């Protein structure tokens, strides 16, 4: 008699996720028992494990598992790569950061790896329940990460705010999902698409309400206005490596489910959500860019810039076309590099007694630390979207797909806000290059941060000059879907 109840090959698609869980457990174990060496060991384990998983997700076999609940395809694997890049870079950065700030190493790394598990699950979710599972796993870990920094009262406030508002958003998401489930009888995204295309449901207001609530919750996760209010405070309050991580990993995962649910779950409703999202995208760019103009803290400015960039990335999703999605994917990858780079410079600048996060701290940096100033300048130009940096390529692709989908006015709005953004990004360059230094800033390039900066610079310049293969990858990923 065949007693095998579980077919182990069925687990093959989730191997990377399982491996990551093991890494997280290993980190906790080392943190508890490894004694003195843990300081060295833990970041290494995270980085090495991250690299292995990066290889695994990049070479993933495409298919489905658990009856379509878990999908591994080009789309998922692209987002997973972005998330893993975020994890690896954040781990490398923390190696530098903890020299100036006391950061509990074990908790930091294990929580980050666990949140990465959540993100990977989100990217592969073919079912609303799996999606929620991943989302919560990610969110809970990130709430803790934000509050990890004991000394700073801002951190506690940020964590509390993020937790409360995030919990609220999750509740809205669940409510929306339950409405959709009630009307279609399934939580499988592909089946929802089949069922909702049949006549009656298309005009059902309850389904629209469910969809609307899900959109609202996703908007919260990726910081789209008017659901962005948590972002500046949380980004400013969180320890800088966590902020950098949040602006890359969770955001990419958020966009992954955003795209998956809307484009493969509700394609028939594109007329409604496309218009809605185009309004939201414009609002987001407006709020992000205009508010960033008046910031004196660079960290807070980058928080508003993260909001604005979520608006740009939304341009791809709202097209509802494969081309649009692949432009969002490319953009998020590029954004990961340039944003990580900018935050790495912020971390580089901070010292135990002084965070050096304001514009005034950057005065005359070109004179005292030409290398750091030069890199920051490249990242700022890339965030503005000036060629030949990668930021331009990403923005170009987004604009191109939004124009192809017929959103001309949205695109015109996007370029106007994008030129407004030039003002505050260039202000950083102005302070660094065109003012005299007020005090000496001692900068210490540790190996971790140097690797992050090198990778970011390579990404920003490399993807700017030779974007061909990345774009082909992103465009090809959607063909399999």
């Amino acid at each position, binding site marked *: 008699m065949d007693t095998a109840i579980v077919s182990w090959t069925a687990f093959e698609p989730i191997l990377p996720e399982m491996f990551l869980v093991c890494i997280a457990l290993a980190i906790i174990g080392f943190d508890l028992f490894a004694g003195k060496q843990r300081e060295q060991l833990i970041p290494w384990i995270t980085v090495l494990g991250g690299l292995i998983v990066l290889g695994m997700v990049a070479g993933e076999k495409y298919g489905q598992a658990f009856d379509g609940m878990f999908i591994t395809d080009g789309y998922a694997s692209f987002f997973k790569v972005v998330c893993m890049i975020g994890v690896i870079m954040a781990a490398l950065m923390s190696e530098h950061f903890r020299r100036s700030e006391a950061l509990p190493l074990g908790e930091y790394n294990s929580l980050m790896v666990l949140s990465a598990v959540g993100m990977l699950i989100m990217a592969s979710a073919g079912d609303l329940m799996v999606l929620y599972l991943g989302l919560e796993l990610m969110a809970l870990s990130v709430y803790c990460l934000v509050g990890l920094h004991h000394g700073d009262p801002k951190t506690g406030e940020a964590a509390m705010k993020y937790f409360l508002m995030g919990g609220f958003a999750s509740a809205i998401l669940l409510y929306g999902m339950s409405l959709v489930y009630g009307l279609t009888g399934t939580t499988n995204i592909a089946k929802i698409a089949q069922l909702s295309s049949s006549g009656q449901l298309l005009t059902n207001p309850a389904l629209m309400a469910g969809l609307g609530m899900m959109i609202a919750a996703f908007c919260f996760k990726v910081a789209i206005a008017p659901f962005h209010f948590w972002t500046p405070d949380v980004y400013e309050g969180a320890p800088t490596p966590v902020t950098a991580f949040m602006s890359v990993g969770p955001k990419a995962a958020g966009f992954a489910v955003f795209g998956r649910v809307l484009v493969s779950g509700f394609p028939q409703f594109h007329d409604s959500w496309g218009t809605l999202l185009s309004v939201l995208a414009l609002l987001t760019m407006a709020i992000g860019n205009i508010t960033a103009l008046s910031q004196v803290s660079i960290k807070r400015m980058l928080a508003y810039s993260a909001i604005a960039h979520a608006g740009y990335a939304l341009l791809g999703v709202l097209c509802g076309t494969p081309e649009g999605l692949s432009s969002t994917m490319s953009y998020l990858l590029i954004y990961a590099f340039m944003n990580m780079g900018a935050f790495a410079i912020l971390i580089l600048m901070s010292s135990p007694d002084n965070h050096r996060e304001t514009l005034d701290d950057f005065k005359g940096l070109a004179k005292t630390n030409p290398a750091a100033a030069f890199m920051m300048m490249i990242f700022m130009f890339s965030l503005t979207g000036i060629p030949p940096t990668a930021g331009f390529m990403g923005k170009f692709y987004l604009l191109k797909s939004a124009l192809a989908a017929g959103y001309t006015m949205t695109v015109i709005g996007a370029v106007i806000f994008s030129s407004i953004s030039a003002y505050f990004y260039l202000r950083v360059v102005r302070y660094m290059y065109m003012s005299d230094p007020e005090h000496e800033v001692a900068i210490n390039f540790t190996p971790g941060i140097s690797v992050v900066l090198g990778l970011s610079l390579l990404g920003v310049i490399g993807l700017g000059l030779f974007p061909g293969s990345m*774009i082909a990858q992103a465009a090809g990923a959607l063909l399999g879907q």
Partner: protein
Amino acid sequence: MSVPLLSTLTFFPVLGGLSLLLVKKEEVQTIKIMALVISLVEILLAVPLFFLFDKTTSHMQFTEFHSWIPTFNINYSMGIDGISVLFILLSALITTLSISVSWEAIQTKVKEFFIAILILEGMMIGVFCALDFFLFYIFWEAMLIPMFLIIGIWGGPNRLYATVKFFLYTLVGSLLMLIGIITLYAQGGHTFDILKLAEHSFPIGLQKTLFWAFFAAFAVKVPMWPVHTWLPDAHTEAPTAGSVILAGILIKMGAYGFLRFSMPILPDATQAMMVPMLVLSLIGIIYGAIICLSQTDLKRLIAYSSVSHMGFVTLGIYALNQQSIEGGILQMINHGVVTGALFLSIGMVYERTHTRVIADYGGLSSTMPVFGSFFLFFTLASVGLPGTNGFIGEFLILLGSFINRPWVAFFAATGLILGAWYMLWLYQRIFFNPVNKKVVGLPELTAREICTLLPMVALIFWIGLYPNAMLGFMHESVRHLIEQVYGTGVTQTASQVSAMLMH
């Protein structure tokens, strides 16, 4: 061609500039010499273009083609024709001169300055070589970065305001053009290839929309009235080298954009918008000239005179016939030479007096007679005295526009009179008049400075006395351009007239 000459010209200065990174920043002299040598080598590399260029065809020459982003059908495609070839030579020359004039003027961050100038040179040459609209846009925008830094770091007291204004004006215009480029791509058979886009015919409504999208980028750069306001600030605050490059090359790119993109790709809109463009050009000519009369700052005066002179250029381009367009292109070169030379001279005297206020000068010809005679050549070329290059360009433009629209030529001619007024009056106030005590005992030009100015004087008289040396490059390409705008056959008579005039 087996040697990728245009790529070499584009990337040699960039690599050369980056090679300066290897030199220690204390070794200022080495850095300066290296920069000068790199720019001289660049001129040598550009010389073959002058001799190998085939003047009998309007086809693109020295072409290079490599696939770049295959998903979007974006290619690395380079090539030049009679319209662009001269600008490459001019860019190489002007960069060298501006490196030479910065020899003493730049005292801080010397290494970074020369790196920025050399990278800027590469980008400028790239703009003139690119045959793929996307590639063009990359060079066009990438140029902003070094220029932003040059004005912002080494500029005058009000440099921050000026450089940000310059950057934002150009960026807004360029981004609107980017939307236009993407629309062209979507409607024109999914290609960014300029030559293929020119063969494609677009509906007139779309053409008009795109025309204004391109106008946003090109008119800002030219600069045409009413989007010229960044120019006086940028020119005034930029270091001498920056002003020279701005006046000499950067603002030519706007007019080049009209010639290379707006006209061949959007011929119907070009015809339809001819009169509005002529009127804007006229306003620019007269407005710029009148403003010049009330300027108290030397550099600002020359900056406004650029607005006026570039008005002539766009007037020539949009009068849309063989003479006027050739005149327009020649006037672009002339303006690059003459205004470049004026800014060089002002830079030299500014190094001595540290003032740009016209009232601080007076009687300079008694203390610096050699300088006085150089400046006189440039002044006369600027007002268009026969025998100098300015005369040929303005004459062709007026002739061409008179054939099409006599009233336009009438108003444009008033700009000439005003031009003579403000330039000669400026000369009088600086060089004659009672000697101001601020200019007493100023040292005469050094050998380096004379060597910097001499090529400009030579060009002024060379073009002035034998314009066909330049115009010969253009005939075929301009004829082809007019064919593209009007369709074939129309231009026969016009080119005959031109042939009679020129030979």
